[in-house]
């Protein structure tokens, strides 16, 4: 479930997606929901250290380093299923 993925990222990895929209949710043929397009996400730990919360999304700023960290985390957890969305994400970044 996509909202569960969002919860997991927020509470376990302290990463906020910040771009929830119908274009960023895909449903696999197995009926599994995937939350994609994490290129606007932020690592909240950094912001907590600095004592402030992240500002509203500005299209240019992407926390790329943490994005890759998160993706490798997802890959480790879910294996093959997410590989497809991993590549989808990569293509979205290049755009």
């Amino acid at each position, binding site marked *: 479930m996509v*909202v569960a993925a969002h919860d997991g990222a927020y509470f376990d990895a302290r990463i906020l997606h910040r771009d929830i929209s119908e274009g960023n949710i895909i449903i696999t043929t197995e009926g599994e929901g995937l939350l994609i397009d994490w290129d606007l996400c932020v690592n909240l730990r950094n912001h907590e250290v600095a004592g402030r*919360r992240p500002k509203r999304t500005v299209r240019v700023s992407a926390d790329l380093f943490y994005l890759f960290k998160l993706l490798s985390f997802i890959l480790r957890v879910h294996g093959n299923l997410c590989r497809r969305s991993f590549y989808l994400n990569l293509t979205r970044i290049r755009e």
Partner: protein
Amino acid sequence: MSAKLLSEPHSNQGIEDDRESAFYVLLYLGLLYTKHNQISQKLDTYLEIFDYTTVANNVAEGGDLKSNFLVTHSRADALNFDCHPMNDLIKDFRNTFSVRYEEPPSVAVLSNYEDLKRNPNGFAQALLYHPAALHEARQNLLKERGWLVKTIVKYLDDPDLVWPTDNMAKNNREANSKKRKRQEMELNSGLKSKKSSRDDRSSSKLVR
């Protein structure tokens, strides 16, 4: 995007904002692809909720219609999905998300709440329903782990929930505009056929 971020572009983004976005995604897709009572006439006035923006100093602002949908009853009450659990889910979500756009409890109410908390006088149970306590509880729900999932699952488990049996989702808006187009075409062709029949008559007269 949440109504709060849209109306205050410089405010901070938190999990409440993402969760509110998720609610709008659900509502938007529901409006476009499932059966409800606003398909024929007023679908566009509902879809406008999501598009409403004003631009000031190169910064997009808006969200008034979103917060309006959460807080006031007129638009939300008029909308009725064929799927009853969806209506209940929307009501539940509106009830919680609206806390962000309501007037917070007054100073008097808050200080009364603090006094009672310190010295409940056997009113500990009633304290749960204190306006300030209810406000606080709803605010906390928005940040609570698993709240969104739990709420959705609650209505997914509703025995009244009926999934559409046809596999192909229909885009209500396109169906609507096609219908409109068809009506326009019929109107035009009707005019033409009247014209042509008149022409026919005149031409047939000539032949005669």
